[in-house]
């Protein structure tokens, strides 16, 4: 079945350092979404990428969708303590628009 792998599982950075998490799918995706889950909270939608090679920015966050629509990355520049949480990617199925395949998440810890 379709799988979305996400690495790394954990990342500890010093405040001000950069952070990147990567997602890879075994099959082509219709789109990719990114979510952030704060400790003790629920996932919150950040962004959706649809086009091959698409790049979107939200302040210090940069999201990329691969040319083959099978991989994606989230890069945070100059992390802050408010960035702490777990970041999930979710791939949309090509043939089932109602279903998402979540990555296992990357837990980010930022030391002040």
């Amino acid at each position, binding site marked *: 079945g379709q799988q979305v792998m*996400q690495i790394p599982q954990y990342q500890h950075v010093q405040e001000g350092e950069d952070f990147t998490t990567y997602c890879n799918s075994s099959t082509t995706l*219709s*789109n990719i*979404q990114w*979510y952030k889950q704060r400790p003790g*909270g*629920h*996932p*919150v*939608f950040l962004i*959706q990428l*649809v086009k091959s090679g698409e790049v979107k920015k939200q302040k210090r966050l940069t999201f990329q969708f691969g040319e083959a629509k099978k991989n994606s990355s989230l890069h945070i520049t100059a992390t802050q303590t408010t960035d702490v949480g777990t970041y*999930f990617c*979710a791939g*949309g*199925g090509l043939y089932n*628009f*109602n*279903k*998402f395949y*979540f*990555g*296992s*998440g990357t*837990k980010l810890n930022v030391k002040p």
Partner: protein
Amino acid sequence: SQTIHQWPATLVQPVGSPLSLECTVEGTSNPNLYWYRQAAGRGLQLLFYSVGIGQISSEVPQNLSASRPQDRQFILSSKKLLLSDSGFYLCAWSVQGFSNQPQHFGDGTRLSIL
């Protein structure tokens, strides 16, 4: 605006007892509805999704069932809970459409089985 309500927030149940978790959505019609389970420190496992009243798709064989008796109501149930059913249960909704739409999650229910 749309809101999603999920209750209870926490639940402690003995092994072998029944379960009923409820999720309701307001401010939208005919949403896609989802139940996920998240083990401590882990990712999201899709349990069930529904595209309409009475339409339930099960993703993994398990001890749980889901029902959608009304358009904006999604219920997760079990007749007899197992220790392995412990976890953080999240309900989510999305707009139905021709492409995958963002999912909006409820606050979740932390279920502990003793």
